[in-house]
């Protein structure tokens, strides 16, 4: 086990290093956005003095390196800063209004929880569905079922997300009103109701991510079917399903896990279009709003969370695929 442990620790260290590098990229990129918050909020007619005063208030007049390290130090301690858009400007109010600032963390937390909920529901539907579809497609390869599954998943991944969303709304909310077309969930909502409201966006996202996972499962399994141990399993008189599930699938896990992780990361970071269509209060919309208003702390925090999610999921996938290799789990 010590070998596995060492590899895992190595991967974690690498993950942290990557996150650090990404934080530099995020900071640089965000600071290169044209215009700044002061200009965006005060508009065309603002006096240079007013802009300067807001900048000073927000610390925008500091050199970038200093701002970066202040931000990084805060982020490491869990303090992601204060949203510019929610800040009280002491220079306008005249006095310190005392701690009523809304921090980025409190702003993001509920939105992020919603996003995770949506991603989680989608994953629970999409992952078993695609792997099952992949196994069946491999089992009945080149049959009508295989072709139909391929055509269905490929056309759904090739269509724009909003289009899929509207098609689902048309069929499941308008023509057969079984699900609500708006996903305006809020705090303190019952789990059942929340789930019901989340179902349509989750189904839309399932259609988007299924193709990738299903086709990788199918390809990884078919890739193994020519190997001698699969022939051996068939020569033992096992049923085709058992050959695939028991003998091919465990050896095909590594590539499948990686594709699943990639798609889960997409569910957390790339779903803004679906959120907009269903008015789902997720982190994606918050992020886009932040960019519009040049709300630097908010944008940076979102980026950092996205990057963290990506790294964490890929790290998990790496570790799981290492563990799926019996040579590493059981050294000689």
């Amino acid at each position, binding site marked *: 086990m010590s070998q596995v442990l060492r590899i895992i620790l190595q991967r974690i260290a690498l993950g942290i290093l990557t996150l650090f590098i990404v934080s530099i990229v995020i900071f640089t990129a965000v600071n290169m956005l044209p215009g700044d918050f002061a200009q965006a909020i005060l508009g065309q007619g603002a006096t240079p003095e007013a802009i300067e005063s807001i900048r000073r208030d927000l610390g925008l007049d500091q050199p970038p390196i200093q701002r970066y390290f202040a931000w990084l130090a805060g982020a490491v301690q869990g303090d992601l800063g204060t949203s510019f858009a929610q800040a009280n400007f002491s220079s306008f109010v005249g006095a310190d209004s005392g701690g009523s600032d809304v921090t980025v963390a409190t702003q993001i937390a509920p939105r992020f929880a919603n996003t995770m909920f949506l991603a989680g529901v989608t994953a629970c539907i999409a992952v078993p569905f695609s792997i099952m579809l992949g196994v069946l497609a491999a089992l009945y390869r080149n049959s009508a079922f295989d072709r139909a599954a391929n055509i269905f998943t490929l056309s759904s991944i090739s269509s724009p997300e909003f289009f899929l969303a509207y098609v689902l709304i048309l069929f499941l909310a308008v023509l057969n009103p079984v699900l609500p077309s708006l996903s305006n969930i809020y705090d303190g909502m019952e789990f059942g109701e929340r789930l019901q409201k989340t179902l349509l966006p989750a189904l839309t996202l399932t259609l988007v991510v299924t193709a990738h996972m299903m086709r990788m499962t199918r390809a990884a399994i078919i890739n193994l079917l020519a190997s*001698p*141990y699969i022939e051996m399993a*068939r*020569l033992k*008189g*096992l049923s085709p399903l*058992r050959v695939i599930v*028991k003998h091919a699938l465990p050896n095909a896990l590594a590539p499948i896990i990686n594709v699943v992780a990639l798609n889960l990361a997409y569910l957390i970071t790339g779903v803004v279009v679906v959120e907009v269509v269903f008015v789902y209060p997720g982190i994606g919309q918050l992020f886009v709003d932040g960019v519009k208003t040049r709300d630097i702390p908010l944008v940076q925090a979102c980026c950092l969370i996205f990057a963290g999610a990506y790294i964490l999921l890929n790290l998990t996938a790496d570790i799981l695929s290492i563990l799926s290799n019996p040579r590493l789990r*059981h050294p*000689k």
Partner: protein
Amino acid sequence: MTDLLLKIRGLKIEGRSDEIWNPIINGVDLDLRKGEVLGLIGESGAGKSTIGLAGMGFTRDGVRISGGSVEFDGIDLVNASAEVKRKLLGSRIAYVAQSAAASFNPAHKLIDQHTEAPVQHGVMSRAESAADAVELYRRLRLPNPEEIGFRYPHQVSGGQLQRAMTAMAMSCRPDLIIFDEPTTALDVTTQIEVLASIRDIVEQFDTAAIYITHDLAVVAQMADRIKVLLKGDEVEEAETREMLSHPKEDYTKSLWAVREFKRPQKPAVAAGATPVVSVRKVTAAYGKVKVLQNVSFDIHEGRTVAVVGESGSGKSTTARCITGLLPPLSGSIQFDGVEMPADYRKRSKDQLRQVQMIYQMADTALNPRKSIGEIIGRPVQFYMGLRGREKRRRVEQLLDEIELPADQYFDRLPSELSGGQKQRIGIARALAAEPRFIICDEVTSALDQLVAEGILKLLARLQDDLKLSYMFITHDLATVRSIADEVVVMKEGKVIEQGPKAEMFRPPHHAYTDLLLSSVPEMDPDWLSNLLKERGVDNIGDAAVDKMG
């Protein structure tokens, strides 16, 4: 004829390539009685495995039975439904594959794979089958029979895996087992143990078997009858003793003759001559594990030094040290009396050019996406600096050298070549650098005897023409007999014995050399029994047999 178990009549099998069905087997008959062992021999491409699998009613993807009949115990396997065949496979007909390492599923423990067929076929419960597995492991003389089943395939050695696979084939007590080259991938000392185990267990349970191999001496030990195949046709069939003493057909006689190829003994090397390559007290390790200890030997101009030993004895590691891929911990490699840098990255282009390698698996050693012209042209350009027309001319010259017509082969891809032809390309690629020394790492062990003989003759001719020196790594002592001038015997990273070939094959030997030499199968059908008696390994206790039934 009532005890006829397998009856094949006029079997025709076709394989598909490029959407065209080509015949593989052109009408073969085969009879197998209960408890009988039939040997199928022939070179690769003769259709041995295809017939063996057809005897199970099974064809690989892209292969189909196009005519004839296969009857197992009265059941027509050609027309039987998949369901009917599935019931027979594993329970009444079992299969032992060539490479146990590749045919055991890496994701499951041995015991789980062993019990799968009995449980799925409803022959035994898991617990019964697991207990039975231990008993079978014991009978096949596997070490730690109680515990070995709980290991994963990668934790067990090749010879042990092969026996575990035989045990697995026995798990449902089948009437028929197809053994498809079960010892080809093993070295001679391990091969003996596996052969003896297989023979005993087949006898004990009175199982009928088809034993497929290209090694005549092996089949002589195992089979009651031998059938010789050539390119999908039967050449002849006879009782084993009859076949060995009086082969009728020319082809069979030529198979017998392969073992006779021998190079004349060369005169002794002049005293004080500088060896081309000198390995001096080399000690090397992978990480903390020492794999070579104080290895020394010389290779003189125009000579072949055969390095022999079981797998894991350090033969290939020595080659890696010489080529600079694995810098030794201590000791040195001298070329023409001059020490070479230990790391290949520090060697000059000329030093690199002088030492070339030919690999065991020509399949994996050639880039599948490059044409033959490109594969050989690359070292011609890299080492000799030739380009354009000159390069092409040199490549054609090299192809001529290895006896492949340049106009036919220049633009082909490796996948369009046979195993022997691929190995020839490997030789041409090594020659392209115009080296003085070539390391041949098991270059014939993946080939059939006839093809291997062609390669050995080619290497011998090239040696005479170009004054090449060879280091010939092999575990096949027949090859050593035919090509070597000097022999180095290695065991556990040390040189056990070395000297001229004539001396090595003449007693008295070092005990280990003796073991290696005596383990090479001979054409005498009683050889294995006699050898086991000599070594004091009795056939497995008969008391145990009565208990199991």
